[in-house]
């Protein structure tokens, strides 16, 4: 229901953007920020769709699979709104996520079982935060209104994903222990003192023993 509503809203934004561009294409002057954001947002969409598919295949919990499907649906819709705008503005879009995004997904997909779910959620939290930050930068520094409209429309969708992912991370398990001092310096330094004392002591006893033997012989 809400998903339908969201997609309808995105479709509306896309149409408005396309119309706006058609009407005032002479005035469309994307700056470097607009171009950068279009490319980055498109690649994030591709990365999150791919991650969604990985979740459908490998996730062990229903919650993570649900997130995966949501990512596929929402980022497909976001990208469908973005692509025509980029085309109108003559911004070429790459066909794949960034090498870094691909490496992250490969690393996550190498895991299995619960470890996959945890790694997947962790990677998606970082990815969605980066996407939000990129959107904020576009809103602040972009010049082309149609591009800024896309960033503004994407923000609540991405924020909603992030909120859901953070809640899922809590359910998958917060850290149960913090091993924060396995090679204690205090222990190391007192070890050194102890060993020195022990060494000196043993040496002294040995020397004393040697003297006793020598004197007995004499």
């Amino acid at each position, binding site marked *: 229901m809400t998903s339908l509503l969201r997609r309808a809203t995105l479709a509306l934004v896309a149409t408005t953007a396309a119309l706006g561009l058609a009407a005032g294409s002479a005035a469309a002057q994307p700056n470097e920020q607009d171009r950068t954001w279009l490319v980055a947002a498109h690649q994030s969409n591709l990365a999150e769709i791919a991650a969604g598919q990985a979740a459908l295949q490998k996730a062990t919990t229903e919650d993570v699979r649900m997130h995966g499907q949501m990512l596929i649906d929402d980022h497909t819709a976001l990208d469908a709104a973005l692509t025509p705008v980029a085309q109108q503005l003559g911004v070429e879009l790459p066909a794949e996520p960034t090498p870094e995004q691909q490496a992250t997904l490969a690393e996550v997909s190498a895991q299995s079982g619960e470890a996959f779910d945890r790694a997947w959620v962790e990677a998606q*939290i970082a990815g969605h935060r980066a996407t939000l930050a990129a959107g904020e930068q576009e809103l602040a520094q972009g010049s082309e209104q149609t591009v800024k409209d896309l960033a503004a429309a994407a923000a609540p969708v991405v924020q909603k994903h*992030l909120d859901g992912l953070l809640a899922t991370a809590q359910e998958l398990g917060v850290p149960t*222990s913090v091993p924060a001092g396995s090679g204690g310096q205090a222990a190391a330094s007192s*070890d050194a003192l102890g060993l020195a004392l*022990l060494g000196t002591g043993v040496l002294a006893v040995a020397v004393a023993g040697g003297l006793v033997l020598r004197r007995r012989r004499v």
Partner: protein
Amino acid sequence: MTLPDLDRGPGRERARGHGRARRWAPVAALAVAGVLSAGAGVAVLASPPALRVAAAAPVVDEPDAPGAGSPTPAATPAGEPTAPVDARPVAPGASPVAQPAPALGRSAVAAPARLAVPDLDLAADVVPVGVDDGGALEVPADPRVVGWWSSGAVPGAPQGSTVLAAHVDAAGVGAGPLAEVLRAPVGTTVEVATTDGSTVRYAVTEVRSYPKQGGLPPDLFAVDGPPRLVLITCSGAFVDGRYTDNAVVVATSL
């Protein structure tokens, strides 16, 4: 009366064996010193280092729950000044990134990059970390580097704990900055700089220790509670290569 008696015994002894005692005295002294020294060495090796934090008693703030296992009431106090999540300016014309106040006007997303306690002249880099298969936080090996649990809240988020952890010390490196932070008085300002260049300031409200056996209260990691900074390290006795307790510093957003 007793004095001469006391004096006489050893006196006679001394008189009788004076020559031998004189010859053997240095050897005996050496042997005794050696045994004492070795004993002291063993004692030092066996004794735990003194890295202790006041046990599970809050220094200030917060009505303590009986049992002291759960440091924070789960419910957010009414009237908590949290910025609504949808406070982000959606109007495209508005210029939202006018810095700094990350909690207001836009939702914070930038990761912590540096932790500093100006009053103690301490600072450390912060890196994102996760949880291993056993559920343990992956604390950076170097105590001078602080790990941020990246599935928790970012500094400046309208709600939730930003959890930072570091080794209290390490062999060959010495004590890390968190060893010092444990001694920070309540009210001490703690600053966290983020990757987008903003700084979020906190004030220490409590320092506690938790025996590791019992684990840490899960709500220390909550993302839906009040916005706060949770610093975790180790404390207590050093037994079999590990500390017995976790020390936790909680600081609330200024």
